[in-house]
């Protein structure tokens, strides 16, 4: 510890005012505070003691909550690969091939994202903030395993700059940074993030009858052709893949980290127990999706509309979005009542987009981004109500 402190101290003067690397002070400070919680003390007047929590710890808690999704996702990428190519493989093999696909994506996301952050910190002279710690891992988890690395890099740069830094950094963004990265790719390079991209095949040919379609794709197809979706699902090349419990476990093709509802729920438990994520948002997203799904069940129309409502909770990225994206405190509603409304509408919109809009097979991304934009409006009315209560009190 002393050694590290001395090392930092020995270069400190270069980064201070008048030093040769004065401009890079935020970078120096950013690195030092990774190793050492800073020696800052409370001010002369006011609270003389402070809570042990800070933004670094809070953000790191989210990362811990994502680890189950990440590990399961790595395995699942490998598992889907061997399943599609018809090769028997051990757990380790599956995990290895998953890691080979996933780790570079994570490395690119963090590398490019942090570099972009550092550039902004130096230019704008603001401290290195912790927000990207979370975004940097969220981005890979919502990417398909086949995504080209350069696209990951481009999307990350776009999301960090347009999504966050132009507004003033962590805490000032309007949209969820990681979802913005995905949305960027979705509209800029649709062919690499939709269609048959969810299973990594590599050079190996797929087994006969293989189809990389997700259940959402089946649904969209059935709705368009007016065929029976559940019958198509039942005839899937890999029997049982789209059974409810199998999908709950997440053993199906999809984005790297978002297939497993179970792992997302483990993450949710961590976030809720630590108070970092809002349980109100998580719960209301699920409730909203289930309510909308049930409503469609009642109205009927085509076989996708009639898909059992609880299926909506375990397919696509709903669970992952509800737990890790919708709960982003900055882009979500800030008021407690607003959080209920915000979450519920995300759930409703997700199912609406999934089922009714044939152009977008998965709705969670757009639903959250859409509600990010609307969150200030929801809050506005909640805040106005608070003001009105105060005014009303005066006239009583």
């Amino acid at each position: 510890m002393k050694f590290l402190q001395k090392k930092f101290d020995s270069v400190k003067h270069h980064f201070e005012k008048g030093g040769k690397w004065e401009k890079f002070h935020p970078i120096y400070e950013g690195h030092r505070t990774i190793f050492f919680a800073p020696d800052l003390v409370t001010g002369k007047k006011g609270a003389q003691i402070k809570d042990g929590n800070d933004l670094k710890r809070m953000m790191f808690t989210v990362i811990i909550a994502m680890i189950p999704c990440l590990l399961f996702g790595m395995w699942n990428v490998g598992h889907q690969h061997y399943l599609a190519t018809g090769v028997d493989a051990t757990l380790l093999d599956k995990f290895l091939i998953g890691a080979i696909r996933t780790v570079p994506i994570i490395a690119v996301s963090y590398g490019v994202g942090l570099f972009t952050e550092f550039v902004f910190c130096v230019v704008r002279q603001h401290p290195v903030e912790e927000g990207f710690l979370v975004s940097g891992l969220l981005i890979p988890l919502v990417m398909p395993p086949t995504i080209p690395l350069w696209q990951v890099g481009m999307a990350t740069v776009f999301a960090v700059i347009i999504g966050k830094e132009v507004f003033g950094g962590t805490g000032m963004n309007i949209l969820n940074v990681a979802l913005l990265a995905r949305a960027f790719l979705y509209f800029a390079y649709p062919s690499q993030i939709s269609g048959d991209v969810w299973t990594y095949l590599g050079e190996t040919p797929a087994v006969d009858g293989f189809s990389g379609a997700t259940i959402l794709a089946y649904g969209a197809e059935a709705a368009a052709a007016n065929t029976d979706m559940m019958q198509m699902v039942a005839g899937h090349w890999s029997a049982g893949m789209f059974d409810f419990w199998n999908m709950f476990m997440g053993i199906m093709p999809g984005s790297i980290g978002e297939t497993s509802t179970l792992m997302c729920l483990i993450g949710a438990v961590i976030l809720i127990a630590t108070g970092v994520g809002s349980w109100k948002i998580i719960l209301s997203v699920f409730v909203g999706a289930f309510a909308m799904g049930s409503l469609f069940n009642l109205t009927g129309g085509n076989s996708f509309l009639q898909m059992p409502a609880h299926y909506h909770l375990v397919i696509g990225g709903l669970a992952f979005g509800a737990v890790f994206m919708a709960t982003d405190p900055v882009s979500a509603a800030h008021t407690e009542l607003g959080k209920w409304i915000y979450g519920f509408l995300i759930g409703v919109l997700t199912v609406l987009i999934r089922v009714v809009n044939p152009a977008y097979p998965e709705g969670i991304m757009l639903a959250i981004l859409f509600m990010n934009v609307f969150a200030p409006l929801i809050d506005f009315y909640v805040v106005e109500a608070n003001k009105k209560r105060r005014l009303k009190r005066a006239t009583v």
Partner: protein
Amino acid sequence: MSQTIKLNKGFNINLAGKAENKISQTDQPETFAIKPAEFNHLTMAKMLVNEGDNVKAGTPIFFEKTMEDVVFCAPVSGEIAEIKRGEKRKVMEVRILADKEVEFQKSKTYSTSDISNLDRETAQGVLTKGGVWPNIVQRPYGCVANPTDTPKAIFISAFDSNPQAPDYGFIFEGCEQYFQAGVNALKKFTTGKIHLNTNLNTEVSPLFAKAENVEHNKISGMHPAGNVGVQIHHIDPINKGELVWTIAPQGVIEIGKLLLDGVYDTAKLVAVTGSQIENPSYVKTYSGACLNKLIAGNVKAGDNRFISGNVLTGESVGEDGYLSFYHQQVTVIPEGKYEELFGWITPSTKKLSFHKAFGLLSFLGGSNKEYVLDTNQHGEHRNFVMTGAFEKVLPMDILPNYLFKAILAEDFDDMEALGIYELVEEDVALCEFIDVSKHNLQEILREGIQLIKHG
């Protein structure tokens, strides 16, 4: 109608070093001070004495330009040792070298029946000239009340829920008569009620329980249940254009002493607390005492912070600093100027936290565990990120996040609409403590109040 109010929100900070209910003998400090700067919104203190003058306890020292009637008096007798001035010759601190025996300036005494027959004007004259007036604090703004106003009600909080707070039942023992006299005098100033708010969960000392001429309300809950602002919000909230006064029991007693005994007697028991104090207990002294003698021989070695007041709302004044006019507590805690290897993530049961983020295990300790906290900030300043936390420690129908942002944006309409009139610094002290982004929220609020008062 008496009210019983149960509050569910809040957070008790249970710290080591609470004062034991006993009085320790100490030498009286050599110097005392009165600090014009600590009275909010005093624009210009006009001095009535010069360095070298001899004063008695109760001799007027200065008055405020905008409220000429209200004089601020010497707490002890002695010689004006120094008038410390800051920028633009603004008076910062008036130091008095105290006599061995305090000599009081005598004024007219009133019997209990005299007090009930007093008219408001006479009472106003006595209180403003007698030095006790600054004890009366007005809301909104949290500044010394203007004697010409008539508040809709007066509020007295009969308990302090702050960390290591003094036990009011103990320190005011035997002051029943003075307290009642003070209440009776205050009654002249309002057409409304005097609310006396006691703690539902503890035994109420007879001083408060037997007080007459007041509305008895019961409050239960964690800190900040004892904050008078929180109580006002639930009992009779302040709306735009309305005015209430607040006063601490010590102030009421000082009024009583002035009327019954004819002296400005600020003698008080001060709780000497904090984990760096060997034997936390009470000491007897006067308003504005220098800390050094009060804690002499009772402080553990180390780099310490000496605080007038408590750890949430106090002020670091140094070992030779002075007790604030409104404070009845001295706290000494260790300084926290150190770096901690991976301190932002290592698990700890010692770091007290309202939150339960990864590794913050203090919640496992239960509510009886006492913590030793230092002044380390545990993190750097950041933009607001977390939402929904401040609301949990502010038991009022107020949206703190939005209010703070309105203040930072200097949006006057929003500040007003979001309830700034109902708050003073102490009410957001817990928000400041739990803020993961480490804002100085009390300072921000004070700036907002300044803006809205002075534009």
